[in-house]
Structures are given as C-alpha cells and as structure tokens.
C-alpha cells in the first residue's frame, strides 16, 4: 500500500512540469501584452516609458523559453512570483486562500457522503414508495440547478426572507452551511442516484438469499453484505466529484464572498494576472492528484481484490 502511494506521489512531479509548460505557453500565446496587463492592474497609466520599465522589471523583454526557465528555476524553490493584482507573493496568497477552499470542498464532500449515500440507500430500500419518489424528484431537481443560481436562491430564502443564516462571508460555522449546500448539491444528487442503483443491484444478488437463509437479521444483511458491496461504485466516483466540488467552489465562492482559492482564481482570470494563474493551476493540480490518491487508497482498503491484486503484481 505504501509503495502504491509513493508511486502515485512521484507521478505528480512530471505531471506538474507538463502542466506548467502547457499553461505557461497558453497564457503567453494568447492575445494582449502582459506589460499592459501589469500596468492596468497596478492602476498606472500605460505610457511608453512605464511599459519599457515594466517589461524590463518583469523580464518580458526576454524570449519565452528564457522566461519559462527563469520562472521554473524560481518555482522549484517554491517562489511562484508576485501577483500583479495583489502585489504579494503568489504562494503566500495561495496558502492563505487554500484552507477556505478546502474547508468548503470538505464540507461539501461531507454532505455528499453523509446525505447522498444514506438517501440513496433509503431510496433503494423503499423502492417505488414515497421516500424513493421524493428523493428521486429532489435528485432530478438538484442536478438540474446551476450551483450559482441555487446559491442565490438559498440566500434569498434563508438569509433575506427568513434571516436564519448569513448571506455571505466566512464568519463562524453558520456561514459555511449555504455555500456548502450550493457546492455539494449536484454531486450529492449524482451520488444518491448511483448509490440507489448500486444497492438495488446488490439486493438482487444470490449471496443475500443465503445470508437471510442463515437467519441473519435484515439490518445485519444490509450492514454486512449490502453496504460494503454497494459502496464501491459511488466511492470510485468520489475522485471525479472532488474535481467537481473544487471547480464548483470557484463560482460559489464568488456568490458567497467566500475568501477561497476559487475566488482568487476567478479574479486572476478576469485580471489576466499571469503569476497568480500559474500558481493556482499548479496548486489545484497538486490538490486534485493528492485527493484522488486518497480516494484510490480508500478504494483499495474497501476492496480486497485491489489490495491483493497490487500485492500480486
């Protein structure tokens, strides 16, 4: 298991290098003049003298490969440059914003697990009865709602109309509830449907007949024989949902004025803040790969065939 984890972590390095090359090229080959962007973000009128000074200061007067190698040399020392918009080191900005995003994505993931899986189980166990109809209707509605729109609806109801929860900001646990719901809803509904289908599939298997014939109580059958088998398909999709949650958090963070990395990235995109964007893409690649690694480890732990297969290999 340890070797498996180490191998996955080591694959991260060439992946980060590849991502950095591709993204650096994409940014530089786009339209526009980075020096002009820098002056615009610094709110300095773009005179010819100012442009020349900035090109020299930022090294924009050098060739693209030279610029990339210089950036890379700094990046391996964890110096990702200075954001043109905030004028602070990019790494400092990212480390400051990352916990808020992880908190939001983590809370959303908790909702997916704590609500999606039990509701899926409930829908399957009450198949074609009202709890099943209700959860299926809610799931259909949930996957159809864009998260930013759902966010505004939640604020309108719970903050403006009822006054129960904060409309924005990150001040106390109460402020996490609405953004987490808005972030989680689509993944939650997909997980619910998947769990329902998975449980229904397992319920039809023969070994359950033998379990019941052995006199096991129904709760025991579900806990020991249905759940472990039914959990594998939803769990394998959690890695995909992580990407969805982190991506969804970007928009939701803007809606709820949540001080996370998503909002930082959206502002950087709007501002064409190259150093911030490069740092963000690398950070998110690392987070995404590491989270997928955790999911794979959980998957291997849950399914002995994967563990044993890995050992045999």
């Amino acid at each position: 298991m340890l070797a498996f984890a180490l191998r996955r972590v080591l694959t991260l390095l060439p992946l980060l290098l590849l991502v950095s090359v591709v993204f650096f090229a994409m940014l530089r080959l786009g339209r526009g003049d980075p020096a002009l962007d820098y002056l615009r973000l610094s709110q300095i009128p773009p005179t010819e003298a100012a442009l020349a000074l900035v090109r020299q200061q930022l090294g924009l007067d050098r060739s693209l490969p030279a610029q990339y190698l210089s950036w890379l040399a700094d990046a391996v020392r964890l110096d990702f440059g200075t954001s043109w918009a905030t004028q602070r080191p990019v790494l400092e900005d990212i480390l400051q914003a990352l916990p808020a995003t992880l908190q939001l994505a983590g809370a959303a993931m908790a909702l997916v697990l704590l609500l999606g899986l039990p509701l899926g189980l409930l829908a399957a166990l009450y198949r074609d009865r009202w709890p099943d109809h209700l959860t299926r209707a809610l799931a259909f509605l949930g996957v159809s709602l864009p998260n930013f729109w759902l966010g505004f609806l939640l604020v309108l109801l719970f903050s403006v109309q009822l006054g129960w929860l904060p409309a924005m900001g990150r001040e106390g646990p109460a402020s996490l509830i609405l953004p987490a719901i808005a972030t989680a809803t689509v993944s939650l509904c997909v997980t619910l449907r998947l769990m329902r289908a998975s449980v229904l599939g397992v319920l039809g298997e023969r070994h359950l007949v033998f379990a019941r014939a052995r006199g096991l109580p129904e709760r025991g059958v579900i806990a020991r024989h249905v759940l472990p088998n039914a959990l594998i398909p939803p769990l394998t999709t959690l890695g995909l949902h992580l990407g969805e949650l982190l991506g969804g958090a970007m928009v939701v963070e803007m809606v709820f004025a949540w001080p996370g990395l998503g909002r930082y990235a959206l502002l950087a995109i709007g501002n064409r803040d190259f150093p911030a964007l490069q740092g963000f893409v690398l950070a998110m690649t690392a987070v995404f790969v590491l989270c997928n690694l955790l999911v794979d480890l959980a998957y291997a732990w849950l399914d002995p065939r994967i563990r044993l297969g890995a050992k045999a290999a």
Partner: protein
Amino acid sequence: MLRRSLLGAATLAWTLPRVSRAAAPDSLVFSWPSNAGPLDPHGYGPNQMYAQAMLYEPLVRYGASGTIEPCLATRWALDESGRAWTFTLRPGVRFSDGTAFDAAAAKANIDILLRHRERHGWLELMSRIEAAEAPDPATLRLRLDQPYDPALFDLSLVRPLRFASPAVLLPGGSVSAPIGTGPWRLAESRRGERDVFLRREDYWGEKPALRQVVVKVVGDANTRALALEAGEIDLVYGADQLDADTFRRFAADARFTTAISPPMATRMLAINSGRAATDDLAVRRAIQQGIDRDALARHVLQGTEPAATSLFAPGMSKAAPGLMTLPFDPMAAVTVLEQAGWQLPPGGRVRQKQGAVLALDLCFSGGDALQKALAEAIQSDLGRIGIAARLLGADAATLQARQRSGDFGLVFTETWGPPYDPHAFLGAMRAPSHADWQAQRGLPMKAAIDRRITALLAATNATAREADEQWVLTTLHEQAVYFPISFLTNKQVHRKGLGEVPFGGTFDEIPFHHIRRG
C-alpha cells in the same frame, strides 16, 4: 413515523428566530470588491483609493463645491515667476503613530516621490516639481521647473501626493505600516474577508460620528445587493457597485433610501478620426445626430445617469458653456451623409461612397453588460441611418491594446471626473497611449491641439488659459471626435435607519467622516 419526523423538523425550523445582524450604533458596515491593500499613500493598485483617502490627507482638498480648500496647509501662495509654491502648514497635526506633521515630514514624503519619479510620470505636477524645501517647520516650498497652473488640483488627488509618517517611509518608496494624518486608522485587515477602520480620537479636525467602519470584501454585485437586503451591510456607494436594474429595485423598496449624485464625469464614445470611415468629418457629424442619447439614458441606463449635454459635466470647465451636444435628429444625420456622398445602394441598407462601405468597429468591454447593452442600442440607431457598426466585445487587456494602437472605429471611454477634469484629462490627450490621442490623430490640427493644451497647463494668466481651453474644446466639438452619452454619477443605497449620507466631491473619496446613524 418518517413522515411525522420530517414534518416535525420542518415546523421546528420555521419557528426559529431570525439571526440578529444589526450593526452597533456607532459602526457602519460597507462593502468593496477587494481588500484595502497595503495602504501606501504613494502606491497604486492594489491600494484602494477610498481607503487611502481615509488614512492620508493632502495639503489642499478638492471641496464638494469644486473649489480648492485648506487641509494640511492653511495658506498657500505662488511667487511671481509661477515656479514656487509656498504652503503654510497646519499646526498641531499628528500622524496616528504620534509623530508631528511638519515641513520636514512633508519634505521626506515628497523626496521619496521624487526619487521614484518614473512611477508617477502620468501626473504632470510630478514631472514639474524640481525640489521640496522646508525653510522652517511650518513652511513647505515646492519648486517647479516651469509654471504649472493646475498644481493645486494635482495636490488634492488621493495619490500620490499625500503624507505618511516619516517613521514608516522605506527607501524603496513604500511604507512599513499605514500611518497617516487622516481621521481613520486601519485596525484590522483579513485578506479576502474584511478591513476594519477605527476613528482616531486624536484627530486634528472634526472627529467622525462613527467609531468604526467595517469594509467587507464582496466581489459580486448580486451578492452585494442580497447582503444589503439581508442587513449584513449598511451601505452601497459608488459609480458601479450595483447595476441599474438593482438600483431601481431598491429605489422602489420603502425600506431603503437611494440617491444619485450630481453629474461628475462623462461616459462617451471616442470616434477615430484616423481610420476609415470615421476619418470623414461628415460621418463623425452624422453620428452626433444619429444616436438617441435620451433613449439610451432612459431605457439602458434607466435614469441612473442623465443624458450628457456637453463633453464635460456641468461646472467642470468654465471655458465651454456654449458647446452643447446636438439633439437626436436622424433625418439631419442622413442629410449630412448624403451631402458628403454616402449614398444607399438600390435595395441596400449600408451606405457607400466610391465603392467604400460605411462600416465601422464599435469596441466595448465584453465583461461589461451595460456597455454591451449600450453598444447594441447604438448599433441599431446607426443602422437606421445607413452606418453598419460591427460590435467587438473584448477583455480589458485587448480593449486597452486596441485603444493604444488606434484599432477602433468607436470605443467607449470616460472623462476622469473631479479633480482631474478638465486639466488632467486634456493633458492626457497628448499621450499616444491614450484612446483620446488615437481618436484625434487624424485631425489636421492635432499638433496645434497638443500645443495649446501644453500652453494652457503652463499658463499663469487666467485669460490666456481660458482662451486656450476654449479653443481646444471648440475644436474638439466642431471636429466631432467624441459622442458624449451620459454623465456618470455616484449612487448610494442604504437602509432608512442610517441617516443622511452625503456625496463626496470626487469618485475616489467616500465621506465616511460625515456619515452618522439615525
């Protein structure tokens, strides 16, 4: 059982009390799209100007009535050569760290600015100042290399000519801490979340009624509106903090007070005289009468900005009171075009002249929904008089690049508002990096325009200055290189309980010190 539990939970939830989010009686919660920044009085982005204005003060202030008023200087005088300004400094002023504000402190700030003069090259006064002198603690003298009449207006700007405590000035030109002489001090800054400003109890002037201003970071206009409705912020203030629809919705809601400031600057189109087909004066003149600006103000801007009647907002320029915009008259516009040889081909809808088609690029900021709506309405108006306007939405950087290179037919632009209008705005017309220079570059008298602007900025004689300004503005008016659309305004929305919120004299300063609750 399950059904009963769900019903019970729903009933219990409905009876929960509303969370009280009422602000303290001497506190105001405001919102802004980003943090205040490092708050360096001499720095630009990411320093936010409203916050710089809270902490740092100028020698002279631009008053709400448009006049220059005393601030850190109580008196000032210009010598006969027009090249030396002498300021008598206000006694008893201290920075928030306790350091006295005197001529040495002021000189230290200006010396730092002069050492990094290249950063401030956009401001004419910074190019004119040769040296700052402190003959005694109460006297500051600024020596210029040549006369510069609008010096006091440049000194009143929010940046860069304001003063930090000498104890925090760093040789690199920044500051180690935000310490100014203003009525507020920064008490807390949480990145991406909020900044908190506290009233200075030892402030030299009239102390603010509020003890604390909390500025929450809210980037999205819809979120800002919902937060105001939910009672989480008290005030929305600014030129573009809410869209016109939302502003109108609050105006119709009895729980809120809304207000629109008097005109402050001008939203307009720059018309490129250096590029076909707008290099033809007849086309530029037809555009003046072919676009219905009243309809734009009424339907697109929804009454939040009045239709423009001149290049500069009323009161900004004494030299051009008679230079009014032409009324919407599409028939007159058609006549101008036809007299100039632009004819509609049989069955066609776009005019032509000697094989050339009357088409132009109308460039706007793609992320700006208001500019897009205006552009679409203008395209429609121009289409009716036989001008094909191709809409080009672009991101801010691409749009700026187009403005710099003159790659536009029509492009949205704005005057800068007080205290920049008209002198600093006219001054910038001489820089090729500005859309204004590019728009004017095809005019046969462009060199004369630049020369007269340079002369009016250096004039020591008011009559000569006004004559030059009159000539420049009349020429621009006759050459039709601008289409003024509307006058930009500041807007504010707050709950009824806040009391009166006055408007500041400029876009960049929010008069927090004059706001009181109830």
